[in-house]
């Protein structure tokens, strides 16, 4: 039986050997969770799937904790895993499901968290983006998010999406044209 006396925190046990790794993992999760969730959410289009896939992406990366020694590389690797996980998910399910947040079984909604004005503004902006992204095909949306939001080079986008550079260029161009026209219509 291993025992730790709380009155003397300086004492170390064999159970503490993984503490540094755990701290490193917690910091890594804290730093990148929002970004990763948003990448995945913008690709798959609904909160529940984005939550599951975000968890999956982090677990995949943190299973190989030696990767965390180089934080920059690990962050880059995490982005790749995140977008690949989302793309694989859409490929497996062959669908794009834009579940409305209000229709989630247990909505993660807080009506009183923000002031009404700020909340309305955020809702309008998010809805405008989501409506615009909804006009794009899965491939166009994925290419647009990776290239224009995540700033992934076009060659890397092609690799991740498993298609040629010409195809990726076409997806990116179509996505930008559709989105721009959508914004113009909104303004008009």
């Amino acid at each position, binding site marked *: *039986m*291993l*025992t*730790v*006396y*709380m*009155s003397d925190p300086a*004492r*170390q*046990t064999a*159970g*503490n050997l*993984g*503490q540094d790794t755990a701290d490193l*993992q*917690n910091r890594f*999760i*804290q730093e990148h*969770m*929002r970004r990763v*969730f*948003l990448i995945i*959410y*913008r690709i798959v289009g609904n*909160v529940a799937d984005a*939550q599951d896939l*975000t*968890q999956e992406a*982090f*677990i995949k990366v943190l*299973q190989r904790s030696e990767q965390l020694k180089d934080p920059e590389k690990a962050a880059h690797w995490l982005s790749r895993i995140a977008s690949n996980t989302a793309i694989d998910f859409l490929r497996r399910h062959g669908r794009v499901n834009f579940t409305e*947040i*209000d229709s989630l079984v247990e*909505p*993660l*909604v807080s009506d009183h968290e923000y002031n009404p004005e700020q909340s309305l503004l*955020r*809702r*309008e*902006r*998010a*809805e*405008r*983006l989501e409506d615009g992204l909804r006009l794009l095909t899965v491939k166009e949306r994925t290419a*647009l*998010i990776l290239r*224009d*939001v995540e700033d992934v080079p*076009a060659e890397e986008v092609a690799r991740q999406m498993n298609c040629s550079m010409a195809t990726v*260029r*076409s997806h*990116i*161009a*179509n996505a*930008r*044209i559709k*989105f*721009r026209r959508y*914004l*113009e219509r909104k303004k008009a």
Partner: protein
Amino acid sequence: MKHPSVEKLALYDGGELSWLDHLILRRHVTGCAQCQAEVEMFRGAAVAVREETEEIPAGVQWDRLAAEMRANIRVGIAASDAISAYGKPNDAGPVQGMPWRMAVLTFGLVLMVTVGYWLNAVKKSEQIAAMRPPDPVVAEASERGVGMSDGSKELVLQSPKTNVRAAIVTVSTVGSAGARYVDEDTGQITVNNVYVE
């Protein structure tokens, strides 16, 4: 004047065109107000996408969602550690061909170190017992369960089955103890953690 296609204009600012196409387009765009306006509109749309994708979806309570995801990730990693630790051979292979003199020497050394360690440990435990404050809160973990006690009261989370032994047992000085079990029959993973506050 012949204008470039809208697809090329959409790719112009993002740098996805070949250098030759880019050069040709740049020459045209510099002298054409209409195409310049087109490029400007694509630039504005790209900024809008970037800005708006930084927003958490409307209505999502991020703090709560993030806390839930963090907890699930920790359980996932714990389960993955338990699976990889399960079935890992504990003993190294048998030592072959060790000469008897070496065996006697090794035995002597081991005996000497053990006796020395035991004498030292007895002395230290007497010192610790003298210094220890009355009834400290302790977190404990073994292959059979995790728990904590303060001398008079005790809380123990036992192994889910009597024949299941923990694949991983951890104790930390910040006041937590954990045991992870893998059920050989069902493959079910149980993670028990206790935290002293």
